[in-house]
C-alpha cells in the first residue's frame, strides 16, 4: 500500500522517470481501482494547488515574546520567593504570645459598686447575758440592727423608775437560768417607758413591767404586762423564740470584718472578706460588696492602662501595688510583665 500511495503521488506529480512511468501506466491499465485512485489524486492536486501567503512573523516577534516570557517568569519566581520568604519568616518568628489571662478580673464592664451595707458593730461584743444577768441593748435602732443581722426577734423590756417589779425583774428574773436560756434566742432591749416609741408606750395601768416581742423591723408581735414568775417568763419566751442565732459565728464574722477594715494589707483584707463572704446575712453582704469594690478597682486600673499605652506599665504597677497579694494583683502583674516584655498591651482572656 505504501508503495502504491507514494508511487501514485510521484506519478501524478511527474517525478517518475519514463520507464517507471510506463510501467506504472501498465499497472493502472491492469488495475482499475489503482487508476481510479490516481485519477482522484490528480484531481486533488489540481483542486488544491494554490499559493501560500508569505509569513509576516519575524524573529523579533518571537524573541520579544521570549523576553516577555522570561520577564514574566522572573517576576513569578520573585513573587514565589517572596512568598516563600514570608512564609518562612512567619514560621520562624516566635509565635505571638497568646492572650494574657485575667481570670479574676471580668472583661465585661462591671457596674459601679454599691456602698457596702452597714453592719452592727454591736456584734463584736454581743452577749445576751453575763454573770450579772441579762444584757440589754438600750438603743432601739441598734437592737433592731442586731436583730436583722441575726435574723431573730427583739425581746423588749419596758420599765419605769420607781417600778418595784421592774427592779425585781432585773434582780431575780434576769439572773434566772431558764430565762437567760430562753432569752438567748432574742436580741434584748431595755427602754425607759418615757423613751419608748409612741406605738409601744402603752398604758402602764395594767401592770409593770411591759414586755413586747418585736420583729427585726420593730413591729410588735406579742407581749404581756405585769410581773410573772421567772419560769412563766421563760416558758413564754421559749414558746415564741426563733431558732437561736449563731451568736458565736456572727461575732467571729464581725471581728473579721472589723479586722479587715483596720488592716492596711490588701491581701489580708481580701482574705478576711473572703472568709465572711459566704454568710447569708448583712456581714456576708458587706464582705461581698467590699470584694466587688476591689474587683472594680482592678478592672478600672486595667482598662485605664489599656487606654493609655504610654503609661500602661506605671498604671498597672500602681494598681498591682495597691492590691498586692490579691488575685486581682496577680492578674495585673501578668499584664504588666507582658507590657514590659513586648512593649505593647496584650490581648486579654477572661478564662483559662
Amino acid at each position, binding site marked *: *500500500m*505504501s508503495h502504491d*500511495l*507514494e508511487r*501514485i*503521488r510521484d506519478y501524478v*506529480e511527474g517525478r517518475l522517470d519514463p520507464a517507471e512511468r510506463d510501467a506504472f501506466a501498465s499497472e493502472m491499465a491492469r488495475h482499475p481501482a489503482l487508476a*481510479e*485512485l490516481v*485519477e*482522484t*489524486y490528480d*484531481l*486533488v*492536486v*489540481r*483542486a*488544491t*494547488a*494554490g499559493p*501560500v*501567503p*508569505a*509569513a*509576516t*512573523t519575524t*524573529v523579533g*516577534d*518571537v*524573541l520579544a*515574546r*521570549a523576553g516577555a*516570557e522570561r520577564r514574566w517568569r522572573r517576576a513569578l519566581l520573585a513573587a514565589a520567593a517572596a512568598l516563600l520568604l514570608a512564609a518562612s519568616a512567619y514560621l520562624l518568628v516566635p509565635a505571638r504570645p497568646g492572650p494574657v489571662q485575667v481570670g479574676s478580673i471580668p472583661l465585661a464592664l462591671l457596674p459601679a459598686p454599691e456602698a457596702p451595707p452597714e453592719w452592727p458593730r454591736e456584734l463584736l461584743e454581743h452577749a445576751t447575758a453575763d454573770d450579772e444577768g441579762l444584757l440589754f441593748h438600750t438603743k432601739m435602732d441598734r437592737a433592731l440592727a442586731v436583730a436583722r443581722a441575726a435574723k431573730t426577734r427583739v425581746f423588749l423590756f419596758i420599765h419605769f423608775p420607781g417600778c418595784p417589779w421592774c427592779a425585781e425583774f432585773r434582780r431575780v428574773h434576769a439572773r434566772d437560768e431558764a430565762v437567760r436560756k430562753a432569752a438567748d434566742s432574742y436580741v434584748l432591749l431595755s427602754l425607759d417607758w418615757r423613751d419608748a416609741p409612741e406605738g409601744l408606750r402603752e398604758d402602764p395601768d395594767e401592770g409593770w413591767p411591759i414586755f413586747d416581742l418585736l420583729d427585726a423591723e420593730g413591729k410588735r408581735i406579742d407581749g404581756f404586762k405585769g410581773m410573772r414568775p421567772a419560769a412563766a417568763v421563760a416558758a413564754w419566751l421559749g414558746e415564741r423564740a426563733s431558732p437561736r442565732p449563731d451568736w458565736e459565728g456572727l461575732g467571729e464574722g464581725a471581728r473579721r470584718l472589723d479586722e479587715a477594715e483596720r488592716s492596711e494589707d490588701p491581701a489580708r483584707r481580701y482574705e478576711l472578706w473572703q472568709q465572711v463572704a459566704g454568710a447569708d446575712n448583712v456581714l456576708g453582704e458587706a464582705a461581698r460588696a467590699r470584694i466587688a469594690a476591689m474587683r472594680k478597682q482592678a478592672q478600672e486600673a486595667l482598662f485605664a492602662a489599656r487606654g493609655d499605652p504610654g503609661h500602661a506599665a506605671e498604671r498597672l504597677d500602681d494598681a498591682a501595688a495597691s492590691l498586692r497579694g490579691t488575685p486581682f494583683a496577680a492578674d495585673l502583674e501578668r499584664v504588666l510583665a507582658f507590657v514590659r516584655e513586648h512593649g505593647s498591651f496584650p490581648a486579654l482572656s477572661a478564662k483559662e
Partner: protein
Amino acid sequence: MADGALPGDGDGFRRLFDEHRDAVFRLLFRLSGNRHDAEDLLQDTFLRVFRKRDQFRADGSVEGYLRRIAYRTFLNARARLSRPKGPQLEKIEPVDGNPGPAEGASRKELKSFLLARVRRAVEELPPAWREPFVLFRYEGLKLKEIAETLGITPKAAEIRVARALERVSARLRELKAQYGEAP
C-alpha cells in the same frame, strides 16, 4: 541548517528562524486553514523551539524536529482554532448553496464545479485523516516521515492517508454519477 544541536545564542536562532520560517508557516497554514491562525502558531512554534533549544538532540533532521514541534503546537491549539478550512477555498467561490452546475453548463464550468467539490471533500475529511493527508499532499513527506511528525506508526500513517484518498475518491464517484464523467 545542518543536522545537530540547535543554536543556543540569539544570532544562531535568528538564522534558524530565517531558514525555516516559510516552511513551518506553510505547514501551519495548510493545517490550520487560515493565515491569522498560522501566524500565531508560527510564533508559538518558534517560541517553543527557543525554550527547548538546549534539549534538542541530533537524532534527526532539524526540519523533522521543527515539523513535530509545529504539529504539536497546532494540535494543542486545534480545539480553540476556527474550524480548519482549506486555504484553497479562500480563492474560489463558495460552493455552499450551489446545488450543482446549471443545466447545459459548459465543460469548463463543470470542471470548475467538480474541482471545488473535490477541495470540499478534502476539507471535510476527519482531522485524523486530513492531517496526514496534508503532510502527504503538500509537504511531500514519505509515510515514515508523516508517522514521525504525527507520533504514530508508519502503518497508521499509511492507513490514514489511504482512507483519506479513498474517501475523496468515493465522493468523486458520486459526483460523476450525478453530473457525468470527469472533466
